């Protein structure tokens, strides 16, 4: 097990290098000059040259990359051009917010999806199945940013149940856990709803397929109660594809979080990136992309480990 994890992490290194090269090249081949943006009205050729020198932007591209790579090996993601703070510091503040949003949404979405999908598949073609199918289509097709706005409109502006944005109440000198949770409800609910629909569609077809398997017929031929058939025989097999989906859905979740952070003014990775785009803040852009790439790879690794725990046919050794 441990050797497997180590090996997978070693295998992730080329992927991470790949991500960094792609992002790095992409950032530097596009038109636009951060120096010009940073200096704004104070722009003069001399100042620009000096600034470029101090930022290391006058070196050849491969040198810039190697320097950046060297720094990263020392835990240094560079300094933001904009905030003059270390990128690690900025990410350190943004990451917990995004992670709590994304993790809470995935966990809730997965749990509800399992429940809903199972009920739908088990009572296929019942009224409940049809109603849920319609709702699923609706939320599956719903753009997250529109749903976010509607949530704010109803639950915040009309009903005053939840705040419309932010992480904590800025007026409160020392906000507690409940305040934080109160601010998290709407963004997390929005992200949950838009991901839930996709998961539960998947779960429905997965349970449907499992129900047709020979071993379910065997379980019934053994006289097991329907609840036993469902819990012991159907569910364990049906969640297998769901686990893979969990691993694969990280990029989409981060994308969804980006819009939600924007709407709810929730200072996470998405908002950080979004603000950096406008000013071509290379170190921040690179840092955020690298981090999300790494998280995606970790997510896949987690999913694989989880999979091997549930499915005895897969041994971690044979998967590499």
């Amino acid at each position, binding site marked *: 097990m441990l050797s497997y994890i180590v090996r997978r992490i070693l295998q992730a290194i080329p992927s991470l290098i790949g991500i960094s090269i792609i992002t790095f090249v992409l950032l530097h081949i596009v038109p636009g000059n951060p120096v010009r943006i940073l200096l704004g009205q104070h722009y003069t050729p001399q100042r620009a040259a000096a600034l470029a020198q101090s930022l290391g932007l006058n070196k050849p591209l491969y040198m810039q990359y190697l320097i950046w790579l060297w720094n990263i090996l020392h835990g240094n993601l560079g300094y933001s051009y904009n905030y003059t703070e270390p990128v690690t510091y900025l990410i350190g503040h943004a990451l917990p917010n995004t992670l709590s949003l994304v993790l809470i949404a995935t966990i809730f979405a997965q749990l509800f999806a399992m429940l809903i999908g199972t009920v739908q598949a088990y009572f296929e073609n019942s009224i409940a199945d049809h109603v849920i199918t319609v709702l699923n289509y609706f939320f599956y097709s719903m753009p997250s940013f529109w749903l976010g706005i509607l949530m704010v409109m109803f639950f915040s502006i009309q009903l005053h149940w939840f705040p419309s944005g932010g992480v904590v109440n800025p007026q409160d000198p020392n906000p507690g856990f409940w305040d934080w949770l109160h601010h998290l409800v709407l963004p997390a609910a929005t992200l949950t709803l838009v991901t839930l629909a996709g998961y539960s569609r998947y779960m429905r077809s997965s349970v449907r397929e499992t129900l047709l398997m020979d071993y379910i017929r065997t379980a019934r031929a053994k006289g097991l109660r329907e609840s036993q058939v469902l819990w012991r025989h159907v569910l364990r097999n049906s969640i*297998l594809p769901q686990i893979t989906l969990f691993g694969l859905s990280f990029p989409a979740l981060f994308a969804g979080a980006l819009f939600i952070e924007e709407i709810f003014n929730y200072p996470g990775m998405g908002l950080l990136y979004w603000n950096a785009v406008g000013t071509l803040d290379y170190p921040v852009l690179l840092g955020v992309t690298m981090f999300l790439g790494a998280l995606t790879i970790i997510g896949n690794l987690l999913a694989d480990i989880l999979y091997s725990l549930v499915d005895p*046919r897969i041994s971690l050794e044979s998967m590499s």
Partner: protein
Amino acid sequence: MAEPLLAIRDLKTYFVSKQATVKAVDGIDIEVDRGQVVCIVGESGCGKSMTSLSIMRLVPRPYGKIVGGQILFDGRDLLQLSEREMADLRGSEIAMIFQEPMTALNPVLSIGTQISEVLVRHRGVPKREALDRAVEMLKFVGVPRAEQIVREYPHQLSGGMRQRVMIAMAMICEPKLLIADEPTTALDVTIQAQVLDLMKKMRRETNTSIILITHDLGVVADMADHVVVMYAGQVVESVDADTLFSEPKHPYTRALMESIPSLDEDKDVLYSIPGTVPSAANFPKGCRFAERCPIAKPSCFEKMPELREVAPGHWVRCDLV
């Protein structure tokens, strides 16, 4: 003569959808005595597997429906039982094994769990004890290293071992009736011999009645006390095994025997039954075999023959014998 353990009377199992009604089983009568091995033989699509699933009341939903008849088991009509009562019988009084031992076992549960859960469910035996009994049962069906096998998973076993596990699972509650649906079709000849041998041993030692469903007349000759030949959803011949092989009466049974190559006899040309089985969604009104029958008369196409007793205990659905 004592009352049979199982008596199927005029059983009809149809698949009903908007487009068509498929008469998979169309009015069959079968009796199984205690300790007897009854083979149901026929080609694919003749309704033999649906018969077995009907006895278990496991006809695939939502389209499959038992539309008529009786299944009297030990004096009770299974078709009248509630779903709950039926579940109590399955695995305990009537057990079943299937053709594909790979897909019939749950891939994510250990062999031990899958065998012992039957005991836990029907006999209320505590889990630990049930596991011990599972080990004993595995030894009984000839599985080597039984103590380790209970902790292993289906994919770690060979086909023959999996079928032994299925048999252990089916027999652990000592059912009165075992239904085996093509239990050796997926196995190699030498492994098939092992499994058939095991089933004979089971029958000897537990006096369980067996319904063996197969398309292989060789297996029938090896195992059966009584044989039921099915064609197009109906029983066409029903007789004790010795008579079947010495004096087959129905043209279909005879044709079937003639079309099999032999291990020690030269045949220049095999008999072959012309055409194909009529579609179960659209049976002809007369005899269902008439179209392919070498001795059919015009009357055969007009009127469906009854299953009649042509000699004591020898039932044939043909008016010409």
